[in-house]
Every structure is written in C-alpha cells, then in structure tokens.
C-alpha cells in the first residue's frame, strides 16, 4: 500500500514524460495543453495524497507504540552480507511529511496548471514535477539510508531540471547546475556518513540501526563505538543537510534556484525538498542525541544561517530572492530546533513553513504573473487594489512568517526559540540569535509586503487593455496588471487557511504534534537546570514584541521609499555588502572554482601532455635518434665495415684472453 504513494507520481511522470518525449518534443509537433498534462499530473499526486491520508488515518488508529507500517518489496543490492532491501516504512514522522508533500504538492500542481498555462512544454514541466514528488516521497518513505539517498539525489536532479527549465537562458541553466553541484558536495558527506554508519553498525536500515544504536540503553553509547565515530557520522550526514537544506556553507545555490518557475520554487525550494535535511536529522535523532558536539554544530550552523540569510534578505529587491533568503533563514531555524534536541519543534516548523512559504511563493508567483514577469519589488507597489485576492492571502502568509499570533508561524517559531533557550543543549546566545533573526524576518517581510502591495504603483500602468490580449506586452507600453485566475488563487486560499490555522497542532503544552512524534523522537527532553518554566511566557512576549517592532519599523520606513534609500546610503558599505550577499559567491569562485579550473588546465597541459606524453614520445624519439646515430656508421665503405668487424674481433678476443689471463 505504501508503495502506491510514490507510485502514482511515478506513473504520472511516465505518462507525461513518454508522451512528451515521443509525442510533443519534435519540432512542429502539436503541443499538449497545460490543462491535460497538468490534469494528469495533479491527479497523480492527488491520488497519492489520498493514499497518504488513508495511511495516516490507519496509523492514527493503531496503538501508540506500534505505529509503523512496513513494506519491503525486493532486495536492491545484495553483496555478501550487505543486503539492501528496497522497502518503505511509514511511521508517525514521515506520514506527516507525506501529507505535506502530497497535500501541498497537489495544491501547487493545481496552481501550476494556471501558472504554466502558456508555457511551451507543459508536458515536460509536469512530468518533472511528478518525478520530483516521486523522488521526494522515496526520500521520506525509504526504509533505509540508501533509499533515502536515492530520493535525496532524485530531488536534486529534479531541482536541477526544474531550475534550468528555461534552459535557453544560460544563467538559468547555470543556476540549475550550481544547485546540483552544491548538492553533490553535500551528498559526498552524506555518502561518507552512510559508509561510516555501515562499517560501524553493520546496517543502513533505519529500524535496525536504531535497534543497534539504542542497544546500550537510552543515551548510552552502543557497545564498542567511540563517541568520536558517532560525532563524525553526524557531522558527515549534516554536511549532506547543508547542501540539500541550504545551510552555511552550501546555501549559495538556493537563491539562484529562483531561476526556476515559481511553483517550483514553492514546492521544491521552500516547502519540501529543502526540508529533507531536517527530516534526515530527525530520522536519525537517536544518533544525533548521542553526540552533543554534533548537535551543537547543527544548532550553531542553523542559528548562524538563520541570521546570515536574514541579513541578506534585508536588502534584496527581487521578490523571489527575498523569499529565497527567507527560506534559508527559516531552514536555519529548523536546524536550530533540531540542534537543541527539539526535533518536534523542527518538524513543526517544517510543516508550518511549508504552508506559509508555499503560500508566499505562490502569492509571489501570482504577483509576478500579474505583473508580466516583473520580479523587482521596487517596481511594484500598490497591488492591493489591483490584486485583492492575492493581497489577502499574501497578508496571511506575511503575518504567519513574522510570527504574529495566532498564525501558524508564531507557534512553531516560538517553540524553537523557547527550546533554544531552555533545552539542555540550548543557550542564551542561540536564543538571542534566533530572536534577532525573528525581528529581521519581520522587518524584511514587511518591507517586501509593503513595497509590493502598499503605497502607490511604481510602474507604468497600461490602460484600455483587456485580459484577452494576454501576455507579452512590452514595458514601453506599460503593463496591465491583472488578478490571477481562479485555478491559481484557489490553492492560495487553501494554503492561507492552513497557514493561519496550522499552528494549532502544536500549541505549547497541549501539543498534539509532540505526542504524535514521541515514538520517533522520544519524549520531550525537558528543560535545562536553572531555567524557569515561567520564562516561556516572557520570551514569547519578547518575540512577539520584537516581531511587532520589526513590522512597524519596516512599515514606517517603506511607506516612503526615499527614507529607505537614505538609510541605505548612510550605511553604504554594509548595504553594498548585503546587496552582494556578503560576496560569498565571489569568495567560492575565488577559492574553489578558479583554482581548481586552473589546476585542471595545468595538469592537462602541464602533466598529461608535457610530462607523460613527452616521456612516451621521448622514448620513441630516443630510439629514433639512436637509430640515426648508429646509421651514420653505415657509411657504405667496405673498409669501415671491415674495421667494425675488426673492432668486434678485438673486443671479443680481448675479453676472452683477458678471461684466460686472469
């Protein structure tokens, strides 16, 4: 039954993919409508959602400590004692993920039908989207690390394909490649971590692994395994997470990934794929919990990324870039949560983030759609009146991410902040970073919101044009802003409801979620000594106040754009630094890409050609030269020939006589 979940999208992919490749791809072939192809894809993922839902209910009905459904299909690789089963295991953790993936996925598919309505190759697009869902579901459902890795790389591939969807634009294609390669760097860590797990514990299956690791009792190291090994495993795996979930130092690909179509950004680069790192850490929480150092690293990187990305988001002007950095920042939050041992909080934030960030992205997509592919928020403004429905849902998403109660973001973010402060693994510093980030988040989101929807339009508006003139009007004529069609707005509505209400599954102290996840992540770790539980309310208040302050400040500042520019100029150095994203791309280019490229070229020309080949050719040359030299003796003169014969005679006879005389 579980296998149906990934199977449906796979079937959708195969149908659309084959149809595209064989039927639509030829130049001059009749292109399929987005409605049909999208319909197939949406149906596939929706079917998957239904199955997920059914299974969720099934799990729900099972006793608490036995909420596992397993399906082993066949042995994937069996070499000696290494036997890798291709199988799925559904438990309380990944059932949530399947629901989010298929649920949000369905909405986004639906949205895409509208968004990609005028695309040249919708068949290709939807097949990729289905393929992505398939891979993502493999990732979360897989019963062992290699299957997770299969999905892990699979989503990377889809991300690559979809970022570079408009391949004719070199920059977009490059962005895809960058994403893939950055992910590959992470995957290397993942792979090695996997190897170390295998050589240490002898299994890669999650259930068996947990059994082996927990054999020594809760919190105790398994027999014969050094803490260092566990730490190494966790760190290596976390390297994989930094790639997939865009953490320092591998986050650079995610902002560029916005080159893809907006639904893709929503689905892959906000709601699902990028959270797989959190899934993996949570899945292996029993390992991470054993290693304080690893947890510290996770939390530290998470916090740092959250803050770092937020600073960049402050000054970005591309609507999707802002959202992208915000995503990086929010992912940092999630890792912060996991890093302090609050896996539930992390997962909680994953879910709420999926709702509101998908909402925000799709909303942004709607804006871009309405603005005829304009993405610069400085050229927007005043869209409230022109796109009222979008405005409404976007506002909900905005409030959710800013952490204004009772919207979903508030609960999950607050949970993370509190645990960052109170958990045994937490600290005031982590909390402080989180809180500052929260303020910044509120600020830049408000900035985005304000510049987009509020104030006066900063674009030249076209008049007298009707919708049916469609897209593609040049800027010279001004643009006719229009609200998006229902097929796009309806999913937004659903997401808005979820963003608004989704937080209630994890209301502090009454958390259904925490209880639900207990079989996987264990009981709540409690709070560190010396932390008063009552502080929770205080901190909650602080963060809400912070958010409100950020919003107010931003609203005030961006009600007049000139003020903002003045402010930017007053700190021009810092501003420039932020606009250029701390020059991280340039730094990587300088210390990795260029040297390796130069080195490669050097090795090729300098070693392959200049040394090895020269040696090889040199051997031939030497032979030839020797031949030429010997040849010169062959003068044609009988005397010389006889003389050489005589020399041979002298030498040999001399040697023999010398031998006798000795």
């Amino acid at each position, binding site marked *: 039954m579980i296998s149906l979940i990934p199977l449906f999208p796979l079937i959708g992919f195969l149908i659309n993919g084959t149809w595209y490749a064989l039927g639509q791809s030829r130049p001059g072939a009749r292109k399929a409508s987005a409605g049909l192809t999208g319909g197939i894809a949406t149906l596939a993922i929706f079917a998957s959602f239904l199955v997920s839902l059914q299974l969720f209910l099934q799990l729900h009905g099972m006793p608490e400590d036995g909420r596992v459904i397993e399906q082993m299909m066949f042995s994937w690789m069996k070499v000696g004692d290494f036997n890798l089963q291709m199988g799925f295991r559904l438990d309380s953790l990944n059932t949530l993920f399947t629901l989010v993936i298929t649920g949000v996925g369905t909405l986004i598919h639906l949205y895409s039908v509208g968004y990609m309505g005028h695309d040249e190759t919708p068949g290709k697009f939807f097949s990729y989207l289905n393929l992505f869902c398939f891979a993502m579901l493999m990732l979360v459902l897989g019963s062992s690390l290699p299957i997770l890795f299969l999905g892990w790389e699979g989503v990377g591939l889809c991300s690559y394909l979809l970022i570079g969807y408009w391949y004719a634009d070199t920059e977009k294609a490059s962005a895809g490649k960058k994403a893939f390669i950055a992910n590959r760097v992470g995957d290397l860590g993942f792979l090695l971590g996997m190897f170390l797990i295998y050589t240490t514990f002898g299994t890669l299956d999650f259930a068996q692994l947990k059994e082996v690791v927990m054999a020594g009792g809760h919190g105790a190291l398994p027999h014969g395994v050094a803490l260092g090994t566990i730490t190494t495993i966790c760190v290596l795996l976390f390297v994989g997470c930094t790639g997939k979930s865009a953490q320092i130092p591998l986050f650079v690909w995610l902002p560029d990934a916005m080159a893809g179509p907006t639904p893709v950004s929503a689905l892959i680069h906000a709601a699902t794929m990028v959270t797989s790192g959190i899934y993996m850490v949570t899945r292996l929480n029993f390992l991470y919990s054993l290693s304080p150092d690893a947890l510290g690293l996770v939390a530290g990187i998470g916090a740092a990324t959250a803050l770092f990305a937020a600073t960049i988001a402050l000054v970005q002007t591309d609507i999707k870039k802002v959202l992208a950095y915000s995503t990086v920042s929010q992912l940092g939050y999630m890792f912060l949560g996991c890093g302090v041992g609050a896996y539930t909080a992390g997962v909680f934030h994953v879910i709420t983030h999926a709702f509101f960030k998908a909402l925000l992205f799709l909303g942004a997509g709607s804006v871009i759609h309405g603005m005829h592919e304009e993405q610069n928020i400085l050229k927007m403004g005043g869209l409230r009146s022109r796109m009222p429905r979008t405005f409404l849902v976007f506002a909900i998403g905005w409030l959710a991410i800013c952490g204004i109660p009772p919207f979903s973001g508030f609960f999950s973010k607050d949970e993370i902040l509190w645990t960052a402060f109170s958990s045994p693994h937490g600290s005031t510093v982590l909390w402080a970073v989180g809180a500052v980030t929260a303020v910044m988040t509120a600020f830049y989101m408000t900035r985005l919101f304000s510049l987009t929807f509020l104030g006066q339009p900063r674009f030249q508006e076209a008049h007298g044009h009707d919708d049916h003139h469609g897209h593609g009007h040049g800027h010279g004529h001004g643009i006719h802003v229009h609200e998006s069609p229902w097929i796009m707005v309806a999913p937004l509505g659903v997401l808005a409801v979820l963003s608004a209400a989704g937080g209630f599954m994890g209301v502090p102290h009454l958390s259904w979620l925490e209880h639900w996840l207990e079989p996987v992540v264990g009981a709540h770790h409690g709070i560190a000594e010396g932390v008063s539980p009552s502080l929770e309310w205080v901190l909650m208040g602080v963060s809400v106040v912070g958010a409100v302050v950020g919003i107010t400040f931003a609203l005030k500042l961006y009600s007049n754009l000139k003020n903002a520019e003045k402010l930017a100029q007053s700190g021009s150095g810092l501003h420039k630094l932020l606009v250029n994203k701390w020059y991280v791309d340039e730094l990587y280019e300088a210390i990795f890409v260029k040297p390796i490229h130069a080195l490669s070229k050097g090795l090729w020309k300098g070693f392959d050609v200049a040394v090895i080949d020269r040696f090889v050719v040199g051997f031939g040359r030497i032979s030839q030269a020797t031949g030429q030299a010997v040849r010169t003796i062959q003068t044609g*003169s009988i*005397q*010389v020939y006889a*003389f050489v014969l*005589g*020399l041979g*005679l*002298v030498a040999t*006879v*001399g040697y023999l*006589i010398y031998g*006798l*005389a000795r």
Partner: protein
Amino acid sequence: MDLNPIFFTAFASLAIAFALLVVLKKNPVASAFSLVLVFFCFAAMYAMLDAHLLAALQVLVYAGAIMVLFIFVIMLLAADVPSFDLGRSHVGLRIGSGAVSLVLLGLFVWAFRHTESFGAKGTLTAAKIESVGGNTQAISQLMFSDYLLPFELTSVLLLAGIVGAVAIAKRQNPRKEGSGS
C-alpha cells in the same frame, strides 16, 4: 719443431716484409709481385715442414695460377683506369686498423705462448708416412678414403664457381638486360 732457425728466420722476415709491401705498395702490380714472393716464402716453409706436396702446389696453384689470374685482371682493367694506384684510406682508419691488428696480434701471440698442450698426437709420424711412400703418397691415399667427401665436394664447388664466374662475366646483352639505377 725441427725447423732450421736460420732458414725460418730468413724466410719469415722475407715473408713479413713482402706481405707488408703487398699492403703498403700503392701500385697493385707491385703488390701482386710482392704477393708472389710471399707465396714462395710460404712454399719454402712448407717444404721445411715436410709438406712437400703442398710446397709444390703452393708454387703451382698460388704463385702460378691464382697470381697469373690477378695479374691478368690487373692488366685487363689497368688500361681503363685513370688512376689505378689507389692509396690507402683515411689516416684515422689507418691508424686504427694498425692498432687493431697489432692488439690482435699481441693477443694471439700471447695465446700461442701460453699454449702448453696441443691436441693428441696422431699416428702418422714421419716414419709412418715414409712407410707408405712419402708425403704425396699418404695424402693421395687419404684423399680417396678418409677425405672422399671433401674431395668430391671440391668438385661441386668448382662447378658452382665456374657457373658463377660464367654467369657474372658473361658478355652482357644490353638489349635483353635491364639496368637498374
């Protein structure tokens, strides 16, 4: 070896001197005549070593037949050659050759000096040979029994030589024969 030292020394010196002349004389005719004298010296040596038949053959075959052939060819060709008195080759080669030959000679002489034992003595002592009628008798008898094969082969050789010489020296027929280069 019961060789008269005086005669030996005399003939040896003569032979060496003429041999040197063969090599050193610029004019091939001079060389040829020196060679004849060397041959005579050798004949004398053979005679002194009781190889009477060989001494006679040496004079007849070598000094007589072969040398005449040489002189004949020289005369035949000399008429056509502007400078027949070809000198020796390059100085370096000459010095080198001299050195090589001297060293070789030294090595050989060393070997001869250090040879104490020769092969086992045969049965054909002077007395035995005398008993069958002398050197010539003995040789001719052996030729038709023990040495029948080489003797017969010599005839094959001579035949081959004749065919070869004819094939080489046959009058050329320019119409029939192509010229290569």
